[in-house]
């Protein structure tokens, strides 16, 4: 009896602080956001008017927001795809792609692994400001300088609406690859060596080694990577807000859901409307979570 009491006390004591913090700082703001989404609140008044679903009706014809949604969608496909392909390629080279007999990484693989990871430890805002300079449109830009020296016309990495989105994607890939190289390397390390060696003895080249052994066995890790990168693509904010011209421009060519929420809330002072956008983003995120879990529900390869 006393033990049960002690046990209950322990459970309560251990949960009290985390649950309280979580309810106060996380759950209650989200709950309020759902209510604010149905008001015309402009952020400076104490008494917002309830307007029902007006904000949601309005956002259906908000061209800029839907443009932002398509950018998130494009990132959702491209960011994981490009990052995973590059990271898999390097992870394979670093772990299995050795020369000659036996299975190991190429020379200096440890060095590369450390180095590729560098961008990951930098704050996103730092990366954004850094690339703002790298992408400068004139001869003082890290990329345009050499281009112009070669006689080419400078590329408007951030100022050409047809290019800017790709610059954003490029920077995101640049920052992400290192982490996934390391992640996949760890995945590869858990695959028994003799599987590769057996395949090599059977005369498998590196390409078939990759597709027949590495990829199937890493499939689970790839799925994890896909979900992580997908969330990154849905949540992207700082890179766009800090790096691009006009916070998501030029001409809204790089804007994403999060920047539109921020813009509407903190620049246009339409907190009600911004919250409605947030609610939509919320359901998109949840939709993505459900979808990716459904799709990834396939048999694991046991070894």
């Amino acid at each position, binding site marked *: 009896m006393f033990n049960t009491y002690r046990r209950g006390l322990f459970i309560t004591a251990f949960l009290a602080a985390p649950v309280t913090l979580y309810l*106060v700082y996380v759950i209650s*703001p989200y709950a309020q956001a759902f209510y604010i989404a149905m008001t015309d609140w402009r952020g400076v008044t104490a008494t917002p008017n309830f307007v029902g679903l007006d904000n949601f009706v309005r956002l259906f014809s908000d061209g800029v927001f839907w443009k932002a949604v398509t950018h998130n969608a494009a990132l959702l496909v491209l960011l994981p795809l490009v990052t995973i392909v590059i990271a898999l390629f390097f992870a394979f080279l670093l772990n299995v792609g050795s020369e000659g007999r036996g299975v190991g990484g190429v020379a200096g693989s440890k060095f590369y692994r450390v180095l590729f*990871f*560098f961008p990951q430890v*930098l704050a996103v*805002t730092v990366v954004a*400001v850094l690339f703002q300079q790298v992408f400068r449109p004139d001869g003082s830009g890290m990329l345009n300088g050499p281009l112009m020296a070669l006689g080419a016309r400078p590329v408007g990495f951030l100022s050409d609406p047809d290019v800017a989105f790709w610059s954003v994607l490029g920077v995101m890939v*640049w920052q992400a690859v290192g982490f996934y190289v390391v992640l996949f390397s760890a995945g590869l390390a858990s695959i028994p060596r003799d599987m590769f060696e057996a395949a090599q003895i059977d005369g498998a080249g*590196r390409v078939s080694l990759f597709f027949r052994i590495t990829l199937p066995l890493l499939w689970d890790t790839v799925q994890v990577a896909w979900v992580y990168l997908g969330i990154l693509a849905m949540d992207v904010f700082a890179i766009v807000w800090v790096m691009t011209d006009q916070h998501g421009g030029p001409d809204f060519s790089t804007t994403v859901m999060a920047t539109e929420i921020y813009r509407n809330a903190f620049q246009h002072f339409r907190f009600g409307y911004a919250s409605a956008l947030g609610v939509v983003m*919320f359901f998109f995120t949840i939709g993505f979570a459900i979808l990716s879990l459904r799709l990834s529900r396939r048999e694991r390869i046991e070894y």
Partner: protein
Amino acid sequence: MTSWTVANSRKLARQETRRRLGPMAMLSHLALLLWTVLTLVPILWTFLASVKSEDEIFGDAWSLPATLRWDNFARAWEQAHIGQYMLNSVVVVTFSTFGTMLCGAMAAYVLARYSFRGNRAVYLLFVSGLAFPVYLALTPLFFVVQNMGNVPLVGPFIGLNTHAGLVLVYIAYSMPFTVFFLAAFFRTLPTAVGEAAMVDGASHTRVFFQIMLPMARPGLVSITIFNILGQWNQYQLPLVLLQERDKWVLTQGIADISTAAGYDSDWAALFAALTLAILPMLVVYTIFQRQIQSGLTMGALK
């Protein structure tokens, strides 16, 4: 004779290798080298620009500075307050990561190892947070924190523009991730040791702190690293919650210099500030790279 055979067979083996994988190996080295360049060059270029003069920065991108302008760093450190912001970041992240790990481990442990009514509900409440976009909560969160400032006694310490307030917010927003992974980790630990200790009369609390936590060390380390990186890089929450300049964290400082360069046109200081923000991270990372890499991947693969 013997040495000749060995040498010769090595040579043959090498020739064999070159014949089969030569061009491929070359290509893979080339690819790796290319990415190395892509990774390093923007960072090194920033370092280079940080010792240039204003004119040189606006001139040819790849020219070398005539003299090394270390005063850029002095300006970044003093006028742009990079030192202050970095210290703020360190203070906030130290406390918030510690708090996150303590609260997260406590909650995760109870949820993973004890069955009681409502366990599932509490667990799901935490984990559901993984799917919330923080932007939705931003505005109301501001008011929540502001209202916390009116709580008697502790209010002034945890309201807006306080580091303690930000620490609490960081802890709360790190809960979903931390509880989710640590609970999974605690479930995998053997139960026998803890049970034996309980039979010997150890309290639940003692079992947790003296037996379970040490056993969970690998998991704790990896989640700690994740949280440090995540909280160090956080921009959105401090942007809203810390508005007084002297309270700012590093990410705010850097973003501000970038905006400020639009008025003060002190680009040299911007590059110096960037360098100051980048270098320590790279140094710390390089020192702990083994732990960080294994910790990160472990967390991710769990």
